[in-house]
């Protein structure tokens, strides 16, 4: 996700070299600490920038496939032209529901932030207390977990570790390598259950690693 200064520099490169900068920002509503970075804060976006937003994350509407883009007028026109020939867009009623949500309930995602914040803090604390140190993310609903020492000692990859943890504890994590080379040796935990269930999962994970 980076920070605002990174985006400013990237947008500056785009402006200088006349390159389109497209920024996917689905978690903009889920800044757990501080303010979410946005391309729309970066000078030059009105000429060469476009940013994509989703109602799947901050609005809990994952199944409805709703999103929108804000950007330079020619880019929006091009996007509209492209989508006109590759799909029929989402149903009009769902779009209208999304518009109504954004217009009249803009505060709504704010209710999710303390929930995710508490989940993040309690799980990170529990795992850290038992020896698995994990950086606390300032955005979104995921913990990115480096391979634990017990897994490294056994020579397990992230995929092997996820499989072993699933078999031993019944807790499913996502192997980071599925997202590409940069995810290798990482696991991802989605904080999508109530906090007591997440803590139970964390305890089961640590018990499994201690076996």
């Amino acid at each position: 996700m980076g920070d605002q200064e990174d985006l400013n520099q990237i947008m500056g490169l785009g402006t200088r070299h006349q390159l389109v900068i497209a920024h996917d920002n689905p978690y903009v509503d889920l800044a757990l600490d501080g303010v979410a970075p946005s391309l729309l804060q970066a000078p030059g976006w009105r000429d060469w920038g476009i940013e994509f937003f989703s109602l799947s994350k901050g609005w809990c509407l994952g199944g409805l496939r709703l999103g929108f883009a804000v950007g330079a007028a020619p880019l929006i026109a091009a996007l509209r032209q492209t989508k006109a020939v590759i799909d029929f867009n989402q149903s009009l009623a769902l779009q209208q529901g999304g518009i109504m949500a954004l217009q009249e309930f803009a505060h709504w995602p704010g209710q999710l932030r303390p929930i995710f914040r508490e989940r993040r803090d309690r799980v990170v604390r529990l795992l850290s207390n038992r020896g698995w140190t994990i950086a606390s993310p300032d955005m979104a609903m995921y913990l990115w977990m480096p391979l634990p020492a017990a897994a490294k000692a056994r020579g397990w990859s992230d995929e092997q570790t996820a499989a072993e943890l699933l078999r031993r504890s019944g807790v499913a994590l996502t192997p980071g390598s599925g997202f590409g080379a940069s995810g290798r040796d990482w696991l991802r935990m989605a904080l999508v259950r109530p906090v007591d269930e997440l803590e139970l999962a964390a305890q089961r994970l640590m018990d499994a690693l201690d076996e």
Partner: protein
Amino acid sequence: MPTSKRLNALGSGVFARSDAAKQAYRENASQQAGPALIDLSIVTPPARATAFRQGSSPSIELSLIGVGSGLELMSTPTEKFNYWLALRKAQPIFRLPFWITETRPCISILVIRRTQEGFTWRVLLFSSFLSPRNTTGGQTCNAFEPRSGIC
């Protein structure tokens, strides 16, 4: 159901293998009464778990929010499209969509309910508008793609 090579190749096959391992765990756990799967590899907002745990009936949820109705035409000629407007204390919240195809009746209703953690979203599919029971038993909107052919 067989999946295509292309689908299996997503995430270099990591996600497909992970899904297979989860399914195997579920089956094994149910047979041997092992601890239930806690799936933290998915991307689901917090309201979904609440919806499953509560398991409340559609009729209760519908009565909580009330409904209004509207009519709108879509460009697709084989569909007659309507939407309902969700009302809560006479204030519109979201429009509740349903659609009826000419070839196979299918009505989808998006149900909204307040919970302690926010709103619960569910999409219920009915085989006909007069059907007393929804055909799928009720699913959260994140569990499938709308209009994916479930009906």
